[in-house]
């Protein structure tokens, strides 16, 4: 009997690895920032799988809700009007 937890673990891992690659590979810096946010949310998913709901919620509150917003705010302030080819 295979442990069914492997399925959400695999899905979250794929999302996390893919989005963290996209953080580096994206042409537009705003896309990088959004992928960074997705990576942080996937980390919260790992905490839920480890039955650490409190850390998962705090991860969303601090990393996604505060740091992610700050990164996006700064990025959008600096790069508007630059045409990306």
């Amino acid at each position, binding site marked *: 009997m295979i442990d069914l937890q492997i399925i959400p673990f695999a899905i979250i891992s794929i999302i996390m690895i893919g989005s963290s690659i996209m953080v580096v590979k994206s042409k*537009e810096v*705003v896309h990088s920032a*959004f992928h960074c*946010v997705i990576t942080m949310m996937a980390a919260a998913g790992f905490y839920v799988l480890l039955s650490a*709901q*409190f850390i998962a*919620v*705090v991860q*969303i*509150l601090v990393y*996604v*809700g*505060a740091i*992610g*917003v*700050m990164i*996006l*705010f700064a990025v*959008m*302030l600096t790069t*508007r009007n630059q045409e990306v080819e």
Partner: protein
Amino acid sequence: MGIVEIYEIIMDTLVFIFATNPFSPWIRGVLGGLVIGAVFGGALVMVYLERKFLGDMQSRIGPNRVGGRFGVLQLIADAIKLFTKEDIIPAKADKWLFIGAPIVALTSGFLMVAVIPFDLLIIKGNEYAVAVSRMDISILYIEAVSGLAIFATFMAGWGSSSKYAVLAAFRNVAKMIGYEIPMGISILSVAVMAYSLDIVEIVEAQSSIWFIIAQPLGFVIFFIALLADVGRIPFDQTEAEEELVAGWATEYSGMRWGLAFFAEYLHAVVGSFIVTLIFLGGWNGLPFVGNLYIPGIFWVIAKTIIVMMLFIWIRAALPRYRIDQVIDIGWKVLIPLALLNLVWSTIIGLMWA
């Protein structure tokens, strides 16, 4: 058969459903569907009430053609109109962000709905909360996922490559950063007084005295911060019609705009539920009177509708602040007052303990 007997039969049925297997995924699923339907319906009711009461308050008639004299079917007509309109995506838009924005807004709303309890059934000494999911940290969870709504504004602002949308996104983020803090601190004061982060236990802690009486300052701060958070009128700079057309939803059309609009009302409805639950006593009846044999869920819904009316009343009564005034209020007034309220609630909470 009297009302009391019908009530007992309903309660016995609920007891049977919950007591056989309270964690059965089928029951949870049905409950989740019901709650989502209820909140959808609540948002529709809020839109209708808003149009009707705004009309009354401004000496207009309001919707009065579709569905009889009171225009009860106006919203359905509007929904049909929105579904059949052309769906336009601007040529210069960042397509994925543009499409994703309303989805993220609605996701944030529905994630908040998941932990809202409507009642607490006590059966043979066991407690069963009428909620999709009961968490130990539900109020913190709501605070966390409500923050996700900012990303919707961001995605729409960047994705639609329009000046109005970008300005609205900037304003929204500047506002949200300032108002999440007093909101978090006033939630914290409630949690300190109730000795719990679980909404169910926070409501149970209000069985003797509502928290609006125990910490009125906290209620005022939370309510103002909530108005700013859901973008209701004194704080709706992100969609100030005279300055920014329709704010971050300027480039949206058809049902995408409908979803964005609906997500805002969903947040307002969920916000009214949270005010009801953490300050107005939730399913506890009136103070000193008790429940009057009315099931708790009706108390929750009645109080929620009163809070919604307060939202509508404020919208009709107050003008809009300038964006710099909004930021000033957030950082210079609400945060110091919220800290003061935290000290107050800590002292009172310790005295009660």
